[in-house]
């Protein structure tokens, strides 16, 4: 096990910079998730950590050793690929033991370690099968087994669940988290799925356009997003954003273009008339007669809760209710945001106020 330090790392392909100085400290034994939309540079960062891409500038250290110029195999890391990258011509056991074989470990040692890893992952009955003869979830576990066998300092996961169906994904999520709790190996996990990030991470690093937007524990990011991007990216359904102006002389509220007044608990001083983006999560809206009038557009019941998409003026707003309200499209409802749960962002910079 080891800590990982990513300091001011930049990456250019040709003249095009895709990572603009990324700094991420990763504590020993932590489960860190790099999350962001496609093209944000998260996979590139992971591949640089693995040694599959060169580092243009900055440093990456694993366990206090700068690894910029260290060969991948010397870095003592193991990686699980999105498509698993299992060797199709080797059995499960051979796949898992391959790295040990390359290290000239003796046969008994390899067999013992493969057996142990197979037991952890419930792969023991499949050891003599070929990857073709396995289901998606089994292949996924073999890929993890290959990583475990090496007992590396750091596990790297590159979107490992995106090829699985929804149900299996949830199951594997739990399995990976459980595995981490058991092995306590430092893990860096890349995904574009914020639910995966929220459910699995000790620390989430939200990336966007080659920079780190925010990092912190899942609930920190959820409760106090630093900026509008993080606020919109974390949470499902996404946070509602309403444009308006802050009124803060006497009573504080945000007034939208069509005159609706959105309640705010506190406001920064001397901010009267400031153009802001008012953020409110769908679950922080409630039906109340003194709320803002909105026209129901779509009602989406999921069973455990009901999502109601409605329109205030020209802006759509999503509300989630655990209770079952009997509303129909076209009806007018009144939504009241919970003032203490409202987020205010600067309209120009997107920063949290």
């Amino acid at each position, binding site marked *: 096990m080891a800590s990982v330090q990513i300091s001011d790392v930049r990456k250019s392909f040709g003249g095009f910079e895709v990572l603009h100085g990324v700094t991420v400290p990763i504590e020993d034994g932590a489960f860190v998730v790099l999350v962001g939309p496609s093209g944000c540079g998260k996979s590139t960062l992971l591949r640089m950590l693995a040694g599959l891409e060169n580092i243009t500038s900055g440093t990456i250290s694993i366990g206090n050793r700068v690894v910029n110029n260290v060969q991948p195999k010397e870095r003592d*890391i193991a990686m699980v690929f999105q498509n698993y990258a299992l*060797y199709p011509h*080797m059995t499960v056991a051979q796949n898992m033991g*391959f790295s040990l074989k390359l290290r000239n470990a003796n046969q008994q040692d390899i067999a013992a370690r493969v057996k142990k890893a197979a037991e952890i992952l419930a792969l023991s009955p499949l050891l003599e099968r*070929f990857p073709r*003869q396995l289901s*998606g979830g089994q292949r996924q576990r073999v890929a993890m087994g290959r990583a475990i066998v090496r007992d590396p300092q750091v596990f790297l996961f590159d979107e490992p669940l995106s090829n699985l169906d929804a149900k299996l994904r949830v199951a594997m999520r739990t399995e990976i988290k459980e595995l981490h709790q058991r092995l306590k190996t430092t893990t860096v996990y890349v995904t574009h799925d914020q639910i995966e990030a929220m459910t699995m991470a000790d620390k989430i690093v939200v990336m966007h356009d080659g920079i780190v937007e925010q990092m912190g524990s899942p609930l920190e990011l959820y409760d106090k997003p630093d900026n509008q991007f993080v606020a919109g990216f974390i949470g499902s359904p996404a946070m509602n954003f309403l444009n308006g102006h802050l009124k803060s002389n006497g009573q504080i509220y945000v007034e939208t273009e069509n005159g609706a007044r959105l309640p705010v608990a506190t406001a920064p001083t001397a901010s009267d008339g400031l153009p802001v983006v008012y953020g409110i999560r769908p679950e922080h809206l409630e039906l109340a007669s003194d709320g803002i009038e909105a026209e129901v557009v779509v009602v989406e019941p999921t069973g455990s809760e009901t999502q109601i998409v409605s329109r205030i003026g020209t802006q759509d707003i999503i509300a989630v209710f655990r209770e079952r309200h009997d509303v129909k499209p076209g009806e007018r409802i009144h939504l009241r945001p919970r003032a203490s749960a409202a987020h205010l962002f600067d309209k120009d910079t997107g920063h949290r106020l």
Partner: protein
Amino acid sequence: MSTVQTSMPVRAAAAGEPSLWSRLRTSRNWAALWFMLPAAAFLILFLAYPLGLGIWMSFTDERIGREGVFIGLENYQWLWDDAIFWLSVFNTILYTLVASIIKFAIGLYLALLLNRHMPFKAMIRSIVLIPFIVPTVLSAIAFWWIYDAQFSIISWSLIKLGLIEHNINFLGDSNWARGSVIFANVWRGVPFVAITLLAGLQTVSPSLYEAATLDGATNWQRFRYITYPLLTPIIAVVMTFSVLFTFTDFQLIWALTRGGPVNATHLMATLSYQRGIISGRLGEGAAIATAMIPFLLAAIAISWFGMQRRKWQQGSNND
């Protein structure tokens, strides 16, 4: 919801025993038979029939202009004691073996090279194909000049470089002639091997190499444990074809040496042509040609059983 059935109207119409016609009309095998028929007819007419005729002819004493009579194995008995025939067998095996091994080595090397990222990749790939697209006889004539006893550019260059003093008699000396025709064959055959293996290489997922790199494999180990095993099915196919083409080669030899000097480059195919067509002894020529069949079958069998062993390609595919 009664109109949803689309796949069962035939069975529904004939409630009892469906008529023969309706069964045939919906039978996929029957349709497949009809689709195969034109190709099968073509193959039977132009491949199987001549092959059968050739084998039959090898049991007769047919000559050009004279109908033959069945003489049993006499042609083969005659060939058994024929030193030139055995020389041609030796030549063919030598030619096939040496040329195929060299073609495989160079082809694989080129394929690995072309599979890397390098400038002008597309152009280099098309240049590699040139020997393959030039008509055989045309390239044979070019080689004929290159190997010419007096005007050979190779001899000229080596003399100018001061490495040798006299022209090399490329096609006049037995061993030089063998080497020369093998070289020409390799030159022609490499592109086929290289391009086919390149196609095979490109089906190997780059993430396998990355995984192997992280597993600690060196360049050589990546080739040995990843590339080579994944390429074996393609290698088996391409080398089978390469061996078959080389074993039955005729044009190149005939254009360059006509089997000379002193039968040193006679392959079974050229000897068969010489005996059968030039000398007019069709039965004997056919016997030589027929004698190639066991060798070719053996080559196919080797690659077939080589492919059978790869269990990892079989089994259920859950993709």
